[in-house]
Structures are given as C-alpha cells and as structure tokens.
C-alpha cells in the first residue's frame, strides 16, 4: 500500500471512529471531527469556486475586444456588488444583482416546473389508467385515487353545521381519511429510504475500516 493511501486510510479510520464516538454521547472527539469536515468542505468549496469560476472566467476574458470585455466584466461587477451586502450603508448596491439572481432563478424554476413536472406528471397520471388491461387499470386507479385522496386531505374548506360545529363534507371527509393513508405510506417509504441511505453509509464506513484493518494486518 502506498504511503499516501496508507496515511489517508489511517486518517479516515481515525475520523470514522471519532464520528462513531457520538454513540456514547456528544464529546470533543465527535465535535472535532464535525468541525473538521465542515471546515474542509467550506474551504474546498471556496477554492473550487475561485479556481473553477472566477479565475477560469477571468482567463477567458477577451482583452482585445472591448465590447466583449465589457460584457464579460458585467458578471464580475454584479458579483462584486453582492459584496456590498456586507455593509448596511452600501447594501443597496447589491440589490440589483440579488434581484437578478432571484428573478432569473424563479423564472427558470417556474418554467421548468410547469414544463418539466406539472404537465408531464399530469399526463402520466392520466395515461397510467389503462383500460385495456386489468393491471394497468388497477395501477392507474391507485395512482388516481392516491392523487385525489391526498389532495382531498389538504382541502380544509368547510361549512358551519346546524349545531355550530365546523366540519367538512362527509364525502370529502372520507377522501381525506383515505388520503391520510397514502400520505402515511409515502412518509413511511421516505423514512425507509432515509434509513436505508444511512445504513448504507454505515456499512460503507465499516467496510472501509475492515478493509484498512485487513490491509494493515495483511489479511
């Protein structure tokens, strides 16, 4: 095993044990490992941004073409104006860049959500009901029922009854009750996926430890 790999494996082993020490409670070893990860990640991200974004763009600026140079400097000026947000007196200088970011991002997300999620998913929900086959019919029916019932659960419109109580319509109440089941199943699946992801990460770490130990022991 090369020395670099050995050292990196040893560091990974120690840091993994330090993170595992959280099993006995919050302790300085765990906090040190967490702070180290956060610091390294932040530093690495900053280095990546400076190296891959700022310097890369500056190197590509057309210094001979003033028009393109001016256009190429606009992003830098806008980025620099964002630094004015650090100072309250000149914070207004970064408002335009911030507005541009929010506006462009919202517009992009909205257009993508409509064209990439709302319409295709609606079509998929409709097309899922295949009347020509029983499985397709059942699958489509379950998908349609799940969608309707889930939406019914979040329908909070109601009228005041004769006795003064405020209750939803009986049909809507039944649909909401069914929608609650779908929501519970969905949340259960999500929780299972989160647990599975965490368990997979644990297994990966244990496997790395065992691999290091085996390689260290020559097994």
């Amino acid at each position, binding site marked *: 095993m090369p020395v670099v790999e050995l050292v990196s494996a040893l560091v990974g082993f120690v840091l993994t044990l330090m993170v595992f020490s959280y099993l006995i409670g919050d302790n300085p070893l765990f906090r040190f490992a967490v702070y180290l990860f956060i610091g390294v990640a932040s530093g690495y991200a900053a280095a*990546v941004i400076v190296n891959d974004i700022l310097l890369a763009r500056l190197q590509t600026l057309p210094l001979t073409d003033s028009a393109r140079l001016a256009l190429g400097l606009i992003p830098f000026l806008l980025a620099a104006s964002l630094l004015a947000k650090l100072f309250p007196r000149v914070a207004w200088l970064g408002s335009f860049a911030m507005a541009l970011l929010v506006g462009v991002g919202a517009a992009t997300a909205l257009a993508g959500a409509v064209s990439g999620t709302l319409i295709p998913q609606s079509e998929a929900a409709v097309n899922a009901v295949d009347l020509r086959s029983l499985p397709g019919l059942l699958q489509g029916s379950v998908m349609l029922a799940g969608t309707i019932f889930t939406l019914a659960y979040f329908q909070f419109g109601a009228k005041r009854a004769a006795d003064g109580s405020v209750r939803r319509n009986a049909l809507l109440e039944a649909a909401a009750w069914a929608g609650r089941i779908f929501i519970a199943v969905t949340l259960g699946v*999500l929780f299972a996926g989160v647990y599975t992801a965490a368990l997979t990460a644990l297994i*990966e770490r244990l496997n790395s430890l065992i691999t290091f130990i085996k390689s260290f022991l020559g097994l």
Partner: protein
Amino acid sequence: MADIRCPNCGKENPDFLDTCQFCQSPLPPSDWKIHIGEEPTPKSTGELEPILPDWLKDIRQQEMDKAEDEILIPPPKPKVQQEPPDLLAGLMSQSESEEEELPDWLKGIAPSLKKEEAAPPPAAQPSPPPFFGETHPSAEPASTGAPAEPSADKLAAWFPENFNQPAPQETDSAPSDDDWLKNLEAFTVPEEPAPAQPAAGEDLSWLRDLEAAAKGAEEPTAPASSEEDLDWLNKLGAVPQEPAPAQPAAREDLDWLKNLSAVTEPPTEPAPAQPAAGEDSDWLKNLGTSEPAQPSAPAFAEPAETKEPPASPKPFQTAPLNELLGDEALRDATPDWLKAALEEPKMPAPGDLSDWFDRQEPPSKETLPTPPSPGAPTPAFDLPAGDSSLPDLDALFNVEMPDWLTGEPEKPVAPSPETTSAPPFAEEGEILAPAELPSWVQAMRPVESAISSTPSTADLVTEREGPLAGFRGVIPLSPIGSSLRPKPFSLKLQASEEQEAAAALLEHLIESETAAKPSQPATKAAAQHALRWALSALFLLVLSAILWLGLRVLYIPPSSTLSDLISALPDASPVLIVIDYDPAFAGELEAAAGPLLDQLALSKHSIFEFIAASPTASGLVERLMRNTNLSKPFPSGLGYRPAEHYFNLGYLPGGAAGAARFIGNPQTFSRYAAIALLTDNVESSRGWIEQLEAAGPQISAKPLIVVASAQAAPMLQPYAASGQAQLVVNGLYDAAKYEALNVSRPGTVRTYWDALGFGLMLTIVAIFIGGVWNLSLRLREQRNAMK
C-alpha cells in the same frame, strides 16, 4: 395640637379641621389663636396660687421671713457646689420675657431692665403696655441698686424685697427640699445688687383665673397665704447686673423651661460671660419691641458692653441631669418631683445636650464676646433636633407639676428650623384650656398668618420607636377625616367576556411556553441510554461480522433494464455524468453508480464527462472513478485515465439556471449520448429533469438515467413512470439487481448487500420487539389502571 370638641357629637377633633371627622358637622373656630390686630385679653393669675405645690409655698413662706431681715445685704457669689439642678435656672429669664402686662410679682424681679441703656434699642413698638413703661430701656435708664418701689399688692411688694435679698453663702441647715432653691437663688443672684422692678399694679388674678379654669369647681378657694408663697419666685427673679442683648424668643416656648434646668459652671473656671437671669430680661424687652419672626440670641450671651467678667464661664447647663446624681448632697437637696427627672432615662437618646455645651468654645477673658447681630440672631438654646436633653426633660415633667407649668407651650411667631425641634412634652400641655390663658401668654401665641405660613411643631409627631426615635416631623401626618382626602374609586378593570377570554387564552399560551416539561426519571433515561448502546453494539457487531466474513448469502434478483438501456447507446459516445450529491452519500452513490459506469465502460467504452452541481462534488469524481474500479489499472480495473477516458468539467454554478444554460447550448450538449444523474437531493435532481424536459424534444429525447440515493429515489420515481427519465436506480437495491446481471461487477454492491440485508432485518426485528414491548407496557398500565 389642640382639640376642638364637636358641638354635635361631643368628640374631639384636631384643630385644623373645619368639620367634625365623625359627624361632619361644622366645628367652631379655634379660639386660642390671636388674629392680627387683636389685643390680648388681660387675665388674672391670682387664682393660680392654690395650685402651687406645697413645697413651693413653704419655701416661699420661709424666704419671705428671711427677706425682711436680709433684704439689704448683697448676695455673695454663688458656689457651684451648691448649685441646684438647672430645672428652674432659666425661669426668670422666661418670666422676664413677658412683654406686657406682667403681673406685679413679676415686675419686681426684673430690676436690671432699668439698665437697658447698654442693650440695643428695640424695634418700633407702637404702643407698649404699661408694663413696658417701666421695663423698657428707652423709657427708663438703668440704675443699680435702686430700691424696690412699694406696691399695694403684698406679693408685688414682696418680690422686690426678696429680689435683692442676699442669699446665704452656705446653707447651715440640714438638706431639705428647699435647699436646692436656696442654692438656686445663690447662683442666680448677681454680684451687684439690682434694683427691683416696681410693680405695675396688676395683681395675680390671671393666675387665679388660670387655676380656676384648670381646676374648675373641684378646687377649693385659694389659701390665705398664697401671696406669700411666691417668695420662691422672688429668688428666681434675681437678675445679674448686666443686661443681655439677645432674647430667646426664637426658641420654642419651652426653652424657658429648659432654662430652668440650667446650671452654671464651677467657679474655678474663669468665664468671660455670665448668663445670668438679668440677661433674660433683655430678651424680654426685645420680645416686645423686635420683630417676632427674628430669632434671638441665647439668653446667656453677654453683650459687648459688658466689661465685667462673668460669674460662670459657660451658660446654664441643662443636660444631662443624671450627672448630678453622683452628688449625694445635691440628691438630698433635690425635691422628690425632681429626683425622678434626674434618673437615667431608659432609652438612650441619639445625642446629648451636654455635647452641645462641650462643643461651644468658652469665651476667653481677653476677648469679650460680641453681641449677636440683629440680622443673624441665635436662639437661646441651639439644640439640634432630637437632643438628648429631651428625654431628661420628659422625665422631668412627668412628675407632679403645676398646671400652669405643664400648660401648652407657646410657639414662636416665626420659629427657626432649630426651634421646630420642640421637646416631646409639648403635647402634654393640651389639657390647658386655651381660652383661660393669661394675656401675656396669648400675646406670645402665633398669629394666624404665621401659623398658615410656617409649619406647626405641634402638628409634627415625635417618633418614639425605631431608628427615627427622637426626630420630629420626619413622617408627615395626614389628617383623618380631612376633606382633602381623595375619594376612593374602583380600580376594577371593565372588560367584556370576549376580552377576558382572549386574556385567558394569552395567559394560557404564555404559561404553556414557560412551563417546564417534566423531565424523564433518571432511571428511565439511563435505561434508554443502555438500550441505545446495546442496539448500537448489536448493529456494529453484526454488520462488522458480515463485512469481515464477506458473507454473500442473500439472493439478488437480476434485472436487465439497465443493460437494455445501455445496449442502445452508441459505442465510445460521450456520456454526461452529473455529480449532484454530498460527500456523505458518496459511499452509497458510488456503489449504486458502479454497475452503470462499469457496463458503459466495459460494453460501450463510453467517454465520461463529469460535471458537478455543487462545489464539493467536483472532488468526488476521482474517488468515484477509483471506487468503481474504472480508474484502476487493468486487470483490477478498466484503466480509465483522466482527460482521456473521462473529463472533469468542474462545478456548474447557478443551480437550475446554470443547468438550463448548460443544457441550452446545443453545441456542447447535443454530443452526449446519454445523461446520468447521480443525486441524493430531490430538488436539485428535479431541476435537472425539468430543464432537460424544457430544453426541447431533442434534448429530452436523450436517455436519462437517474442514480439516486435511497432517500431521494421515491420522489423521483414518478419521473421514470412518466418517461422523463428512462431509468431510476434506487440506491443499493436496484444497483444490486443490475450488478447481478453484470456478473457482479464491480462487486461493491455485492459486498454491501448482505450487510444491508441483515441490517434491515435486524432493524425490522428491533422495531418489532420495541413495538411489542411498548404494547405490553401499555396493556399493563391499562390493567393496572383498571385494577
């Protein structure tokens, strides 16, 4: 403070109330005040004679007998050893302070008033009474040794005779009650005989009236020898040769009573000034001539014109009286009623009057003291508030005293701040009927204007307990039943039911926020810690054992979906791989993406172009290539080399906007044969899917394979169902199926699969056991509750 009896209900009310505090009936106006412009009513004090104590009468009778033989003998200098208690030392000065209509017996005790040419002329006096016609310095020059003028009244005739009567130098008789009075006469008589003041012709009828008012019908008629009994006062009336330039008018009225207790210093100490009784006559004259609001100098202060050395270096000693207790001879000579005053007070006073005397520098022989200027006069006794002599005086006047001595002390017209500290026995004089006061006493009463402008010391209460004991007027009094009392009004908040409900709701919310939740018992928390450690140890041991042993016992159903999709891609085509996960999920996603990348590299020799959707993801490319054995040399890996078989394009900023811009460039994006999205985040992956769909049919037609973490895959599954994504690899579960079909290449998922399977089963078992345990506990609690 005098009380006014309500004519309606008959109850006593404070004199400052206009209406009765009990029945709200209007109260008659207080008649003891003298309004501006009113003339005092002459009163006869002759009827007061019967109320004099017997011992005084006896003394007076004896002295009258002696006076007939010794009237022309000048009195020797008094001896300090025989000085009586200072109770009556200042009596003469007080008696001389009466300005008008002094009784005859008092006129004869102020012979020195004729020597008033040494004193400063008094202020304008519009109409001095007849009494002042004889005593005023401007009316008659001073004369020494003038004989007393005869008077029709026996008592008045008796006074001048005894006034110049020399007292015996030493008492030969046995100690008796009258010895102290003899001594008093001895030390108060000046060195030079002073002429007796002729009587003004007024009798003592005002004293009789006063006595009659005090005693009423209960007292019998005055004894026949009442006039002779005033002999003791004749001695007290002995005045020094030199008149005093100042008067003690500014002091509280009872200052003259304090003067009664003043004693002189021992004669061994040379003294520049002698505060003899003759000085008191001066302030008496000034009282009638000067402005009433101006305080006067001490009565014992020697005027500037006085050249003779005084008989005593210090003024009268007024306190403490208990110092005299050590003198047995003096104790024997002290009358019974005075002995009580000489006893040690029970409660220590905050100060001591004798301290005041100690602080006063005795004037030297060479420099005679200058008389106090009229503009800055000093009181007769500059006693601080709460002086220690007050308790002694209290005890002094607790004994049996004549009613006219215990009468209401008169207030000065304009008392200085020092004069407001009246002795605490001032309230005891309220029993004296105001209407029966003699005229000269009424003249000393404050006028109405002065009362309204200056605080009355009678209204101030002397604190008797606590740290303020001895102070007067510290806590102001508020009259009970006064019409100025604010009317009570209800403080109950008028709130409607709705407001009260809202307030209750708000209060409940605040209480719920601040209420501390009950903490779990220590045993229960410890049990949970132990359970957590046990489960952790169990999982670590099981997973570590499976990984250490390399178990591969669990079956993996193969799936050809991924292989079919990859087989449709062209060979050696570039494939865009989007890295959109954090380093924490690198282990899972590297294992999940292994089968895809291995099949692409192995079967299609695809060129990988990696682009990172997060700054930290750009560094995961090399790790991904290494852990999937792509970058490892052959035969352990596929020998993929950077910049040749795969490219790291770096970080793509801008999120969805950046993705849209990257996807919207047809020249760069159209060359990719497929797009692989490795993600652990639903939102970011959805953005990529949406932007690919929004980029147009040409772009959206490209195969999209989403390798998602197990936590994000369920949310991305609809995009696979809708056809927006050709395939969604759901973590290790789907990757294991594709890997199984690919002859378990690269083998990472297979390594983890058994551990994952056993771990999930162990988790299910733990959850089930925990559920059963909790259910049993709940059932047991319910059973116990039912029992």
